[in-house]
């Protein structure tokens, strides 16, 4: 202990002053970026393929976040001008774009030819394509479901099903199981009778459905034996099989392809770095690396050639998988999701 009081006081003052100075030193060190994604195995793959390499290469201080598609958060942030997210990985967000909540993408800044990405939106850059498929436990069924009609057949395949707690995908599947051709699904769904028909078909299995909300749940529900088959994102099931050795099988009939997009909320704090990151993540070799980790179709067509050939059969775009699949009509859902989601939640509660 310092005996002299004067010296002690001097040490205190110096300590306090230096701590104050250090606290006020501006963080010149690194650029910052906040990227928010879906979590689970998907985000882990993104971390290895994009986040960590980007942070290492550019020295950016990259913070990750998770969300579950709550567009209200983005809207609230933008409207109160307290945007803390720079890049968000989400589904089709045409409505948010129309409401001015997202930045319009400047493809020159990205340095890529927009024509290469036909799935692009005004405010969204395609990241990867995922398929909503039906997965089932091989050990529960000798011959599992082969068509989407089997999912609605409680006699042949008794037991609970897991379905996404949203209107999309489920209404399309209900119509296809009811006999509508996949190419006509959205026309039929645009009519009042078509919607009634879809809900009537869903009513037949309503009591045996467990509704999941987050992408990681289907694999968990299947593993727990809570459901015998479940709709899921194909990459999550692949990950469960590869990492945890689960006996899950994917049924590709009537798989619905949809994209995940990079979007930038309007007024994000680090827009330039956001563009740098998205540009980094669109590079063919990076996308191929991501596909190697979790089999989602890369959005950059140059990347497919670089994907590990062992992974190719698991991609949703592989010919044997996409034979009966179709793309989700995002325009249709941009127009109709308000009504259909309302009706769906009312139907669910009754």
């Amino acid at each position, binding site marked *: 202990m310092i005996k002299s009081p004067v010296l002690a006081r001097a040490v205190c003052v110096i300590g306090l002053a230096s701590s104050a100075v250090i606290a006020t030193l501006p963080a010149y060190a690194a650029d910052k970026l906040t990227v928010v994604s879906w979590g689970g195995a998907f985000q882990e793959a993104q971390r290895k393929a994009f986040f960590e390499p980007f942070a290492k290469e550019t020295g950016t201080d990259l913070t990750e976040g998770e969300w579950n598609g709550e567009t*209200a958060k983005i809207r609230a942030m933008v409207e109160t001008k307290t945007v803390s997210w720079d890049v968000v990985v989400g589904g089709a967000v045409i409505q948010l774009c*129309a409401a*001015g909540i997202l930045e319009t993408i400047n493809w020159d800044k990205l340095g890529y030819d927009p024509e290469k990405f036909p799935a692009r939106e005004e405010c969204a850059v395609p990241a990867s394509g995922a398929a909503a498929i039906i997965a089932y436990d091989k050990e529960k069924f000798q011959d599992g479901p082969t068509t989407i009609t089997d999912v609605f057949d409680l006699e042949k395949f008794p037991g609970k099903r897991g379905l996404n707690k949203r209107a999309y995908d489920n209404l399309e599947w209900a119509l296809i199981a009811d006999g509508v051709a996949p190419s006509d699904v959205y026309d039929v769904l645009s009519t009042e009778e078509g919607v009634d028909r879809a809900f009537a078909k869903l009513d037949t299995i309503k009591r045996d459905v467990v509704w999941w909300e987050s992408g990681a749940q289907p694999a968990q529900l299947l593993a727990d034996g*809570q459901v015998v088959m479940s709709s899921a994102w194909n990459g999550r099931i692949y990950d469960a099989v590869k990492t945890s050795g689960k006996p899950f099988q994917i049924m590709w009939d009537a798989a619905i392809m949809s994209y995940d997009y990079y979007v930038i909320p309007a007024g994000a704090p680090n827009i330039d770095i956001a563009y740098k990151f998205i540009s980094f993540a669109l590079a063919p070799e990076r996308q191929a690396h991501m596909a190697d980790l979790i089999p989602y179709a890369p959005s950059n067509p140059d990347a497919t050639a670089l994907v590990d050939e062992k992974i190719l059969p698991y991609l949703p775009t592989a010919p044997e998988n996409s034979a009966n699949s179709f793309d989700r009509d995002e325009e249709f859902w941009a127009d109709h999701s*308000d009504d259909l*989601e*309302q009706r769906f939640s*009312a139907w669910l*509660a*009754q």
Partner: protein
Amino acid sequence: MQTALAPTSAKPSSKAGGVPLRMQLKQAERRRKLNSFALALPLLLFMMIAFILPLGKMMLKAVHDDTLNALMPRTTEALSTWEAEGLPEEHVYAALAADLKQLSEHKSVGKVSLRINYELPGAASRISSTARKVASLSSGPYKGALIEINPIWGGRDIWGVLKRGNADYTGFFLLRSVDLEYSADGSIVATPTEKAIFREVLLRTVGISLGVTAATLVLAFPLAYFLATLRDRSRNLLLIIILVPFWTSVLALTSAWVVVLQDYGVINQVLMTLRIISEPTPLIFNRIGTVLAMTHIQLPFTLLPIFSVMKSISPSYVRAARSLGAGPFYAFWKIYFPLTLPGVAAGCLLTFILCLGYYITPALVGGPRDQMVSNFVALFTNQQLNWGMASALGAILLVMTLIIYLVFNKLLGVNKINMG
């Protein structure tokens, strides 16, 4: 010494130190009140800012909605002369075209179509497509052209909605929260059955809360009695065992219940191994799982007030009753039980009000038919972006809770409640 023991004269306010005693008393009282107020001021400010203000804003959002008034000023203004008979005049359609063109330029069509869609499901897509095509209409007559673009403009419903949008305040959200709505001519009618879910949901919320409160009371009362009669050491140990779930996060508890209640979870596996059942019993994603998990989580809330009141009841009362000839049950019922009522009331009220607002547990272990009001508030806030509805449901829940509290107060009196 001498001044303090001044002789008490006939006059009550004897002057001591130049100030009458009554005034001194008043000053002292004022100072005391000021001190207490100053001590409580930080809490008061905190409550105002963090509690009352946000609540006030929420209640306001349930009735305040100027979307249509602000974004479609010409149309709502022009509709003020329309009497809801037949279709509006040409000038209203012209105003509509002008408004839609302006909205398209500012990318605000989405807000308007979303707002109208709350009242008229299906309208959103038609309004957006109209807005896209209206740019090609450079001059009138607009009425025929707009009806041709989309037949929705030839029906009275949407004009009714737009006419009501003339005010900054709307009763739409509150009405929908109790399954009522405006018809095209402005009168209040019941919502069609396929959309009418909220009365049932509100009743369900109250029902589940009552059920959980009763269950916790049945479990907590004997347990509290047992704890109150134990000796200190064993009592503390038991208390800690009961309090550990109290201190654990609700999410962790609920997830643990998911593991226990699953079809192939702990309970079902044990029952199947013991050959009591051959097929798993559904214990999760239904009412059983919800009430079970909520009872577990709420048990300490009911237990602790009852326990603390019981601790303070002297055992000599019951002994006195017995010594006067009362049977054991009679002594308990007439002497002991009424003394525990303040704690019982506190515990039950606390549990009931907490249960009304439960979200996580019904969301994780309940089925779609066990969702309480909070789930719909979350749905409207996060997914459907209908903050008016979320606020309205929240406001109704708040009012319901206040009414229940007032009734409770009338029956029992706040003074009687003893949290211990």
